């Protein structure tokens, strides 16, 4: 049971971070379908840092890894910003391109790094067993992970930032009615860029949390297995509101955690359901949830529409 709670919390942390990222981008008016790719890039930056820092003091590892993962994600979303804000490109197309690009790029980079170390090692796997310990604090049978705290803090800050500050209200105005926002002197382009970069920052952290959640090495050829899209489902289910996103993430995290730990429960193991079903579960649940909640969606009104100063 402790294990189930632990995995639920860590997967929920991933979903919270990435869904909040999506939430900031969409409130500014840009749909970031490239979050999956942003996660891969964050994971790549974080994993390579962890590998390089093996043996360093724990606190330093935590800080530097968080920072590199966040920055990798942030830099990667520049691709989205340039194309979709400045060049008014199709946001779905660019997001998709970013997802495909990230897996290909990460595989190429990791393979090149591995081959430089050892010409016989042509795998796309990065190991970070040793540094991973820096993030974990044992509390009896429960393994507390610093990332859980990071996700919680991100949730609180997001709530305050969105609803209690001038920046947040202006950001949301740009996603609802950019023309009106512009007419009262808000620079829509700056706001949209902020939303997109924040989504990259949070998505990048989400990526490193995801790949360190259950394992100590990651094969980058697999990307992040649709988790970026699960996060978007969480965001929609959470109606683009931070608190609801937090609750939705817990629910989805539970189903994702079940696939890791179902064999530890006697009554679940007795049901003899093949493991594949549990693997499928998060995707199936999100499809069902979306089917029932999307009709009355509270999506930002102007999301997905490039802002053109001249149009009315």
């Amino acid at each position, binding site marked *: 049971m402790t294990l189930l709670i632990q995995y639920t919390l860590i997967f929920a942390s991933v979903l919270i971070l990435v869904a909040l990222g999506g939430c900031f981008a969409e409130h500014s008016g840009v749909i970031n379908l490239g979050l999956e790719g942003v996660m891969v890039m964050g994971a790549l930056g974080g994993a390579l840092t962890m590998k390089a820092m093996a043996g360093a003091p724990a606190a330093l590892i935590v800080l530097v890894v968080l920072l590199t993962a966040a920055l990798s994600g942030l830099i990667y979303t520049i691709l989205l910003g340039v194309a979709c804000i400045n060049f008014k490109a199709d946001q*779905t197309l660019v997001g998709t391109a970013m997802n495909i690009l990230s897996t290909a790029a990460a595989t190429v980079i990791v393979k090149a790094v591995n081959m430089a170390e050892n010409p016989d090692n042509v795998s796309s796997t990065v190991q970070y067993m040793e540094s991973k310990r820096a993030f974990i604090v044992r509390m009896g049978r429960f393994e507390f992970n610093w990332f859980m705290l990071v996700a919680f803090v991100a949730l609180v800050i997001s709530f305050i930032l969105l609803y209690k500050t001038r920046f947040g209200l202006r950001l949301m105005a740009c996603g609802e009615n950019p023309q009106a926002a512009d007419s009262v002197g808000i620079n829509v382009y700056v706001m949209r860029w902020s939303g997109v970069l924040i989504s990259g920052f949070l998505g990048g952290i989400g990526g490193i949390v995801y790949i360190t959640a259950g394992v100590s090495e990651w094969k980058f050829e697999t990307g992040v297995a*649709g988790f970026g*899209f699960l996060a978007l489902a969480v965001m929609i289910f959470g109606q683009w509101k931070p608190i609801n996103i937090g609750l939705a993430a817990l629910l989805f995290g539970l189903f994702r955690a079940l696939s890791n730990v179902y064999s530890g429960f006697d009554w679940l193991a007795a049901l003899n359901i093949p493991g594949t079903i549990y693997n499928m579960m998060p995707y199936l649940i999100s*499809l069902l949830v*979306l089917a*029932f909640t999307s009709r009355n969606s509270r999506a930002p009104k102007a999301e997905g529409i490039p802002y053109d100063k001249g149009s009315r």
Partner: protein
Amino acid sequence: MKKRLTILKHEGVQSTLAALFCILVGLFIGFLVLLAINPSGAVEAILTIIKNFFNYPSAAAAKKYLGNTLVKTAPLLMCALSINFCYKVGLFNIGTAGQYVVGAGASLYAALALKLSWPVCVLFAIVAGGVWGAIVGFLKAYANVNEVISGIMLNWIGLYLVNMLLSGVKEQSSPYTTAISSVNGSALLPSLGLDKLFSNNKYVTVAIPLSVIIAILVWVVMNMTKFGYELKATGFNKAAAKYAGMNEKRNTVLTLMIGGAFAGLGAAFLYLTGYEQWATTQSSVPAMGFNGIAATFLGGLNPIGTIFSSYFIQHITSGGSYLDKGVYPSQISDLISAIIIYLCGFVLFFKYVLNRSLAVKKGGVKK
């Protein structure tokens, strides 16, 4: 000068120019990455990718491997058509990858477990892909679910289902499904003598000409029929289409169903040649559906253009596998295709700027 300007105004010319531009930039960035990994062999490596089957010195071998590239172009073209068709109706069918997966699962199950003949296996693939697409369409039309997100979810559900389904017909000692030729030869697509043209490459089948014919048919349906017009109108403005008496919900479901059927058929075109066996331990969705996105946009969203762009994408993907694996990762090709898709996002802007500057020039002449 004036004549050159009018040529530039032509939609097809603009698309071709834009595609060539994307390809050149994509290859150039790929080259830079190769340079960064190992400068000494970079020139040779990028040439290897571009040359693909020409890497073989003998003409017979080159022809045989041209055949292999074509064998994989057929499913890619079908996936690209699936995305193209849906995109024209305003739907981004990223679920093509999953529709392709269930098509592969259904056709292989029909061939290996049910021991049916090839036309029935193909039908299984079409129906499976169609159903998978229709789910996305149904959710979009009646529950307002974003088709990109539901498509991705169904990709993964499909992958796990197919792995489960096909683990009953796999080889004892490996995760791969048994070879069709050893169990049920009647499920293999007929080659109608086409294999002779490619140095007896037995994987070259009717799939290749069929996929080209379907591409032409899609063009005809979209541009010359009332049905195509209705679909395009739905994509352009849902409310207007509804007002004009078109059933926009039905059109959405129908479009994704047809798109799914294309992708399913594409999978049958590959797996029923025996060229590839399905690995039941696959943990990622096959890249075919995603490469289809590259082919669609590189082809300027035109089914005929897509024939050429599909070939090009498959050409460099196959070319990547000839790289010296001890020095360069073969995923460089995927990287190049991904960059090409990204650049395609700028194409509309490129056309807009071009048309505007042409319009300005024209105005200048009048003065």
